[in-house]
């Protein structure tokens, strides 16, 4: 095995990312749920000027609901298929 192989395999063995990095689905889910709620409320309370500007479409409402749905999708996915941490590496 070449020197490089050896070095990288060794580092990979000691690496902590797999075991300790949090799951990004939680962040995407959380942020989009919050954004979804904020933008949906802006849509529910939209003024006539807002509606007119957006060509008669309540774009805040639709975008907000879509973002909320995406957020919920990620949270549900996280719930149903949680990350299985790899078998614990050798003790330090």
């Amino acid at each position: 095995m070449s020197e490089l192989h050896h070095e990288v395999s060794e580092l990979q063995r000691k690496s902590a990312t797999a075991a300790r990095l949090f799951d990004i689905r939680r962040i995407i889910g959380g942020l989009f749920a919050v954004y979804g709620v904020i933008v949906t409320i802006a849509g529910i309370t939209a003024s006539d000027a807002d509606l007119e500007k957006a060509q008669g479409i309540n774009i805040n409402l639709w975008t907000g609901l879509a973002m909320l749905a995406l957020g919920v999708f990620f949270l549900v996915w996280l719930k149903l298929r949680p990350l299985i941490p790899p078998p614990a590496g050798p003790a330090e």
Partner: protein
Amino acid sequence: MHYLAEGLRLPTNGLDYTILAIYFAVVLGIGFAARASVKTSLDFFLSGRSLPAWVTGLAFVAANLGATEILGMAATGAQYGVAVVHWYWIGAIPAMVFLGLVMMPFYYGSKVRSVPEFLLQRFDRSAHLLSSVLFAFAAILIAGVNLYALSIVVEALLGWPQWLSIVVAGFFVLAYITVGGLSSAIYNEVLQFFVILAALIPLSVLGLKRVGGWGGLTGSLEKSHGDDFLTAWGGTGIGDANPLGANWLTIVLGLGFVLSFGYWTTNFAEVQRALSAKNLSAAQRTPLIAAFPKIFIVFLVMIPGLVAAVLVPKIGTAGSDLTYNDAIPLLMQELLPNGVLGIAVTGLLAAFMAGMAANVSSFNTVFTSDIWAKYVKPGRDDAYYLRFGRLITAIGVLASIGTAFIAASFSNIMSYLQTLFSFFNVPMFVVFIIGMFWKRASMKSGVWGLVAGTGAAMVNYFWIYKQGIVDIPTDQGANFVSAIVGFVAGAVVMVAVTLFTAPKPEAELAGLVYGTRSPGLEEPPGEGDDAWYRKPALLGWGAIVIAALCYVPYSF
């Protein structure tokens, strides 16, 4: 360079700024939360080679989806019409599929940590050092140009002074990469990907509604810009005149083959995302998963570009004070109410920062593991390189802030330098492709191929084209031709040098060249990787077929 017109100030309010502030807080939060996972230099530079394919795949597409790309491609749509699809369907998809199916086994399997490190393994130290140094310079330059472009857009849209946005954005990028390393950069890219979609989809929908749907859009453009404006290939016969200044042959060979393969397969800012995947199958799937959104993103930049061309028929010409780059900001101002407007501003800023972060996070890897650890201070322990990596990240960000300020006063020099560096990607691809498929290619042929290819592309561009020795109508067309020239020159010189110099000993080529196997490499496939929808070949060919089908409605 992006100069946005005056008068594009957005009517932002507290709601929009709340949305923006939440985003900035989350960006920093990701950085600090990722800190716990950084124990070795491999964690910092390559996320410990442990991320799932969907994360690296979305980061792969987002690293390319910087704001300069978004504004620039909408501008291309406003200027050249539907021809902008070439940059996606022929100018990206085939190269991404090639990277995943053909090249990734060598990249990932050889365990190299960077693109230059592959050259060190396959060729010699001179090819390695040359490509490392040039890449490091180019990454800082591009990061700085991104930062400068951000400051111009923010000044036009929000009214912040340029220095303020340069310093604020620079600080956030510095904080989250120095603390969290590549994991933090990649996670932020994935987040940015979704936010930018949430910005561009409503914008395209409202834009279409504004001009009377797709039918209204095409009707108006056919009248004002001619039929060819709405086709991909109209007017690209050899010898025909078209605004792109390129014919089908230079589009297919120059853009579709040389330029795009050079960018997608050897640009470390992209390849790094795939190298951080958790196993070979995930690494192969990284560019393939990225290919699917890439196919459809073109609609989200082309439609705003075309709509802008309808709303302001004189956009980009002397008769209008709006430039092509103003297409998306113009529609944001005209169509988006507060709320979605905040999402759109956040998306643009996120895209600028992610574009910069992708360059910084690849710069620190190359500078630390390829330059510092190989030529300056070899043989230290891993903790030293991890500390140095953090330090050089901070220095890199400060250098890009400096570059951004220089760009503010010498923007012509900057675009000149960018053109210069772009010529380096082309011979990189030649050297890779010959090195991976021809065992005999000698150790010295690498560096000479790089030098000859870059030189030939520059001579063609700066002398033959700029001095008017051969008449090529536009910069765009000249770029395509220069790429082809650089490719051929690099290949010829590599073959010639190989004939007169020593090959690399066969034993050292294991796992680096087609037809060899790397010893001790057979990692067990991950659980579930044999599912049909995770087969790289199916994903890759699927993307090619969809991209080809997308051409059909715009080709006849």
